[in-house]
């Protein structure tokens, strides 16, 4: 059997920024010969070489010729590219070449956390990941699936793993979209030890797939599986079958916190074009909302694909909220604010809800069975909805807390 001796990884070319290209040739002797080319060599040449050396040593590789063509990549990217090239060259993958953790992974998650916006970040494009948290999405999704070419799945996994260890994403929940099963199970091996907050399963069609992922996550966490909080699961329904099984999928595991939908694939499955108004997906989205509520999880809408069309996005998001969704995906940071605004209750709604809640509390205090506002009686479900809305507004920072 021929053993691969040469591997390369990363990006080359004049338009590449914040990335690099690495060639690793494994040799039998001569130690590590590292050649670095970089526009910023006078500033970071030593650091680039050091990161390269440490990564290879971490893999247990002692003899190799390495060419690094750097375009201003930060260390976690250099480490990921060097590791990918070395593994492709046939280095044994049993060492630990992970960069040191430089951000604390304080849990920033909870079952019913606000999930209005979640920003998709292509797993193999580190440049887009560096500052993603600054745009304040409720979550970032490090994507290993559709945005990553099939030939780059191994490399993207390393970038994403290293990013979770070293990039602070601000207050955002860190989500990872794995590949369709069974490839996605391999993603879990690389990703789960870094403790992302949530894993998205694409093209989920059955409860069994959720169980499979959940089980694999717990196996990987091993004795740590019980440590709170768990790694949540958000199944993505992208087929007619998935939509039909929505309730079972949502109820498959206590780790499921939300259901979401992928409309490109869903409309393709139906064989209809995806429209700006979305009539073709109205049933599926309504079904999803109902199943999610029935199972006690959040309903999250798809993405709006036209980044330049802010009015279209706002209109879509407003309809989406009207259907019962609690958030949607973003493919560009510019979409975050319109989505937050669309999913936020209006000032009038908040005011009305607060009056209802106040009336309810007053009735409670007085021991009255009936809540009334002015001359009108308020039914219990109205009170419940008002309480939820006030809660949402409070978590979205739309209500100024007295004394704070």
């Amino acid at each position, binding site marked *: 059997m021929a053993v691969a001796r040469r591997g390369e990884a990363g990006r080359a070319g004049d338009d590449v920024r*914040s990335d690099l290209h690495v060639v690793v040739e494994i040799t039998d002797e001569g130690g590590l010969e590292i050649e670095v080319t970089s526009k910023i060599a006078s*500033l970071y040449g030593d650091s680039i070489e050091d990161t390269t050396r440490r990564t290879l040593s971490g893999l247990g590789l002692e003899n190799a010729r390495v060419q690094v063509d750097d375009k201003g990549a*930060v260390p976690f990217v250099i480490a990921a590219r060097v590791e990918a090239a070395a593994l492709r060259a046939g280095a044994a993958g049993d060492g630990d070449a992970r960069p040191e953790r430089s951000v604390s992974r304080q849990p920033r998650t909870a079952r019913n956390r606000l999930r209005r916006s979640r920003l998709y970040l292509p797993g193999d494009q580190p440049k887009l990941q560096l500052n993603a948290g600054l745009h304040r999405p409720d979550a970032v999704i490090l994507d290993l699936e559709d945005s990553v070419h099939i030939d780059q799945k191994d490399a993207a996994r390393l970038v994403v793993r290293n990013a979770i260890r070293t990039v602070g994403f601000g207050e955002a929940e860190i989500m990872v979209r794995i590949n369709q099963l069974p490839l996605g199970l391999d993603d879990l091996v690389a990703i789960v030890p870094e403790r992302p907050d949530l894993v998205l399963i694409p093209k989920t069609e059955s409860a069994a797939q959720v169980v499979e992922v959940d089980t694999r996550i717990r196996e990987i966490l091993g004795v740590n599986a019980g440590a709170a909080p768990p790694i949540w699961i958000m199944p993505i329904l992208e087929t007619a079958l998935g939509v039909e099984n929505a309730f079972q999928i949502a109820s498959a595991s206590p780790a499921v916190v939300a259901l979401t939908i992928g409309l490109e694939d869903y409309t393709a499955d139906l064989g209809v074009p995806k429209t700006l108004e979305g009539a073709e997906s109205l049933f599926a989205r309504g079904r999803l909302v109902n199943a999610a509520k029935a199972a006690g999880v959040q309903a999250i809408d798809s993405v709006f694909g036209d980044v330049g069309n802010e009015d279209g996005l706002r209109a879509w998001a407003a309809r989406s909220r009207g259907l019962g969704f609690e958030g949607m995906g973003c493919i560009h940071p510019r979409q975050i604010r319109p989505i937050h605004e669309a999913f936020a209750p209006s000032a009038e709604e908040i005011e009305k809800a607060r009056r209802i809640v106040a009336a309810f509390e007053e009735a409670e205090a007085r021991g009255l069975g009936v809540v009334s506002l002015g001359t009108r009686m308020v039914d219990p479900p109205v009170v419940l909805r008002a309480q939820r809305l006030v809660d949402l507004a409070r978590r979205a920072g739309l209500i100024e807390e007295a004394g704070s």
Partner: protein
Amino acid sequence: MSTIRDDGVEFVVNAAGRRVPTLVNGAPARPFTGIGQAAPEGTKHGPPIRSAADYPDDGDKRVPDLKTALGRCGLRDGMTISTHHHLRNGDRVALAVLQAAAELGARDLMWLPSASFPCHEPVVDLMEQGVVHHIEGSMNGPLGAYCSHGHMRGLGVLRSHGGRWQAIQDGEVHIDIAVIAAPTADPFGNADGSHGPSACGSLGFALADSMYADHVIVVTDNLVAFPCIPWQIQGNHVDCVVEVDSIGDPKKIVSGTTVLTRSPDRLLIAEYVARFVRDAGIMKDGFSFQAGAGGIALAFVGYIRQMMIDAGVKARFVRGGSSSYLVDLLNEGLTDYILDGQTFDLAGVQSIGEDPRHVATSPFTSYNYHGKGNFASMVDAVVLGATEVDVEFNANVVTHSDGMLLHGIGGWQNCLFSGCTILALPSFRDRIPVIVDEVTTLTGPGELVDVVVTERGIAVNPRRQDLLAALEGSDLPIRPIEEIKTEVERLVGGAPTRPSLGDEAVAVIKWVDGTVIDTVWRVPETSESA
């Protein structure tokens, strides 16, 4: 403290703590002594007195070509020839003049452009051939590399737009022949930039040259019969007029439209700047601001425009470089005037040509420090860029962190005198942090830099407690500059190694009063790869 090198040039440490030469290209140079500390003496420089008897009564000063014009103006070895950057990267005149001088056998010329662009790269060959001795003006790209690597025979001298006026007016620089590329001119030499196939807007950068140079040549591709109306350059200063097929490539003179940045990080910075201007109470009726043509500055104008509409606030004036974004403010009644230093797109050119509220200014009115005041200090807020800023808010705008010349100063130093100077910067570029312990080249003292806005937060200079007080209760991410620096260094793997620069000066940076604020040192040629 001073040191004297082998070549006899004495270096002293100036008031900003930087080591600078006291002799620049053979002339004594004063080290920086602090802001407003170097009092000027004497009278302004004057060109020789001329007589109308020596010029044609019919006012027709046309000569057949550039060579004839240079000959009439007495071209000799060692002369200083000045040109201007109104035509930006589309300019065809500066190079043609220097090449014509070369064909006439001139050597050791000093070229004094108001700025140089990539289209001027062939000047490297002219320096190699000995035609051009050195450049005093902005240098970037190949010219910057040539100077940075120590190939230029003289010291580069970088001045701000206002500093260039000051140097010419004060006689620090003596211009033998000024060549003015004019989009429209008449045979007498009256010239203007707002009309013609190569229209570029204001010709303000050429005004000083027209007034103080020994000889003035106007070059145009749009000759009109006397009078050229309006005229910004007065023909009474002009010796000869040369007609050519084309003074420049219109597509590179102005962009068709200035394009807004789509970078989410830059948009975020621009929005922070606008919110800062609003929340600090600067944005109020009758206020003024200046923002250039960079991506962040343009986006800032978009954000502040909306905030002005929302708040019902109107500016008294805004300062360009103008673009469609400023023109929109004017047309929407959000500002009374645009006071324009240069014009960046077609909308700007059209507006300055047609709208009397869109007024051409010059480095004299806007920036000259050796005058009885200037407009820059009357602007309430200015948004500028920089390559580096240190924790004391000192900033560098001329060199890259590796020491290579990267940008001219432009109006940057002059604008620092505004009521609130805001540097709007990404916190790192290609891994290189923007906030450093010490800037590579000091271009502006931290005393004049009030705010640094990055995508990671806003640092307010502790000297501006008034701004901090005004921002109390704002939800903007106001953070100590050191904290932003630390966060960036954690992301990029630490502060960069300081590049080892040679002990050979290749250029000096002048402050607005003509003193030397810093030295640019030679960068070894091997520094582009390790």
